[in-house]
């Protein structure tokens, strides 16, 4: 009768159990979220600018901080690759294999983390604990390989920093087959859980046309039914020799975005097993010239969250003239306000978490 109820504005985050270092400004009418506006920038560290004041080698741990705590290898791998492309270096075979092994192990750890977050966004503590525990096994493997659990700084310009330690192969195969058994447990506990399906199926449906239009990348795009993966489309390192598939799903909802990460873990296990089997002998690092030539180069790799790009402009000095970082979470963030229109408030955490956004990655 003429009187209009004003929407309530709710500021969700940055102090909120689920948002991480984001703030979402929600307009709520009762329980329905009319509009969501992400407020980013809480973790902006100016890494692109910092990189212009460090030498190329010093920049390795710096650019890793873009997103080191989930997916260190996926974040960092592009940076040595862009330099190698600029310098025209061929990386030794063994180093290529080692890079693939570390990258896929880190992808497994990152996807386990993503699954745990989807579980806890519906209040499923058991899956949180299980996946975090099993992620620790992979982190232990990475620690054997690089000396670090989280911030690996493993690839370097021209190769990798460390060779495989003794007994790594046996330990890795043992743990990966354990993880394969655990994936079956996850399926029974979470993916076939009726209540979990009720909460996630049909929620946050991102159609393929919308996903392409918005420029979504990575597992979110594949969960939206588009077969796109840099590892297949433009193979780098030794991915062209690896025998794996790109899973694509057809319901396009939050459940699929959780499921695709479980499916990709299976594929990553396949890749690591094959790479460990085929691992050739040889050096792990090529000799590199002291300075890169003048010019520019772009490289992209498939990180756990999607395509990770580095665009490097060099003026022939020992520091980059400009380093542009294209991070996947920033590109996926745009889907969040798109999906959070006229949804119940209870679905906002699930949609947000299922996109697997990392604030560090968005802000750089």
């Amino acid at each position: 009768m003429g009187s209009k109820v004003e929407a309530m504005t709710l500021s969700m985050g940055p102090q909120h159990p689920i948002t991480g270092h984001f703030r979402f400004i929600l307009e709520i009418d009762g329980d329905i979220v009319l509009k969501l506006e992400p407020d980013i920038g809480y973790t902006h560290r100016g890494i692109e600018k910092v990189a212009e004041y460090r030498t190329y080698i010093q920049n390795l741990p710096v650019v890793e901080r873009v997103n080191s705590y989930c997916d260190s290898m996926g974040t960092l791998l592009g940076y040595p690759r862009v330099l190698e492309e600029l310098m025209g270096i061929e990386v030794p075979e063994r180093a290529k294999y080692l890079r693939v092994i570390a990258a896929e192990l880190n992808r497994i750890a990152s996807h386990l983390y993503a699954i745990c977050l989807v579980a806890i966004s519906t209040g499923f503590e058991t899956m949180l604990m299980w996946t975090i525990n099993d992620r620790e096994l992979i982190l232990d493997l990475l620690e054997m390989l690089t000396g670090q659990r989280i911030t690996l700084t493993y690839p370097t310009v021209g190769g990798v920093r460390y060779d495989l330690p003794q007994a790594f192969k046996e330990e890795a195969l043992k743990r990966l087959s354990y993880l394969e058994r655990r994936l079956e447990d996850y399926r029974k506990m979470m993916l076939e859980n009726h209540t979990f399906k009720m909460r996630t199926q049909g929620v946050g449906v991102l159609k393929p046309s919308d996903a392409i239009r918005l420029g979504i990348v990575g597992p979110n795009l594949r969960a939206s039914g588009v077969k796109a993966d840099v590892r297949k489309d433009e193979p780098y390192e030794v991915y062209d020799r690896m025998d794996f598939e790109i899973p694509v799903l057809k319901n396009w909802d939050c459940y699929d975005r959780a499921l695709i990460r479980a499916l990709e873990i299976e594929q990553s296990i396949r890749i690591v097993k094959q790479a460990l089997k085929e691992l050739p002998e040889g050096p792990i690092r090529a000799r590199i010239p002291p300075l890169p030539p003048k010019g520019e180069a772009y490289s992209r790799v498939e990180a756990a969250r999607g395509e990770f790009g580095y665009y490097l402009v060099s003026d022939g000095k020992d520091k980059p003239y400009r380093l542009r970082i294209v991070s996947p979470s920033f590109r996926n963030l745009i889907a969040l306000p798109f999906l959070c229109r006229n949804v119940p408030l209870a679905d906002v955490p699930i949609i947000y978490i299922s996109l697997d956004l990392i604030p560090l990655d968005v802000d750089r």
Partner: protein
Amino acid sequence: MLMDILAFLTSPRFIEAFLRVIVFPGTLFTLLYAILAVWGERKLHARVHLRIGPLHIGPIMGLFQVIADFVKLVQKEIIVPRAAHRFIYNFVPLAAPILAAMSFAFIPCAPYPFYYGRPGPPYWVIYYTDLSLLVVLALFSLRPLLMIGAGWASNNKYSTLGALRAALQLFAYEVPLIIALAGIVIAVGTFDLARIAESQLVVWFILTQPLGFIVALIAMMAELGRRPFDIPLAEQEVVFGWPTEYTGAQFALVMMSEYLDLCAVSALITILYLGGWYGPVVPFLPPQASYVFWFLFKVAVLTIIIMLGRAVFPRLRIDQLLKAGWTWLIPLALLQVIIVLLEVDANMSWCIPAIAG
């Protein structure tokens, strides 16, 4: 005068009442239950989560961790938000545990072994009345009012949202719960919990009224806000729901009231459906003690069942809960009542104690 007071204090009647209020069905027992329940829940969930849980404090397996946490919480500053309604805000943490403990005062636990013809109830109960089921339900339905009051008084948007969810949730569980319990009242013909328990000497109501048991258990879990239904407290959505702003001792009291409620609900379902204090005679125990043993045992089992919900279920959405409540629980409860009425009509005395006795 002094001698009168002394004589009253030493009279068996006072000592008996004092023991009831302070020790067995009263304060000490419920507090001990709350401590053991929090500890047990943490250990149970740790076991499901493949963790270890509390380990170091106390004689075995971190038993005193809860006490340490309580002491830590009590030490903390009590913060009242500036724009909060001070009276309601401070009143709710005091009222909630009292309300929860009060409902336990009307639930009989076992026949009273030392009854020598003195006036007083022949049961382990603080206050005996033949309308105890009604009183307990009335006390339960007061709790959402406290939640709404606290949520509104906190002057926090998350608290308000949590309180509104608690109010909505009331519609999902209250009606099916009362319809399901009506089945028992029809079968026994009384609201007296002690007589309801005694009528199950031969057959428990979980066997004759399984649908009612399922509906009552689910509705009670929703009332308690345990995991699949902890919508008013949903951490990922509304931070902590209506008690978001409470700190320190007030938070401890609010949390304690949840576990006192759990105690009351477990005891109530035990009395209503699980045969109360009846069970096989325990060897080496006098029959009176075995009554108490069976009551406590059943309460413990029910508590564990209710707690396991948090380990194996994600949280439902409020509209899904309301839909489940109105499309599944109410028809099931009504079906149970119809079945009971048909049994009354057919004079089936083995499942209708009111006819038999």
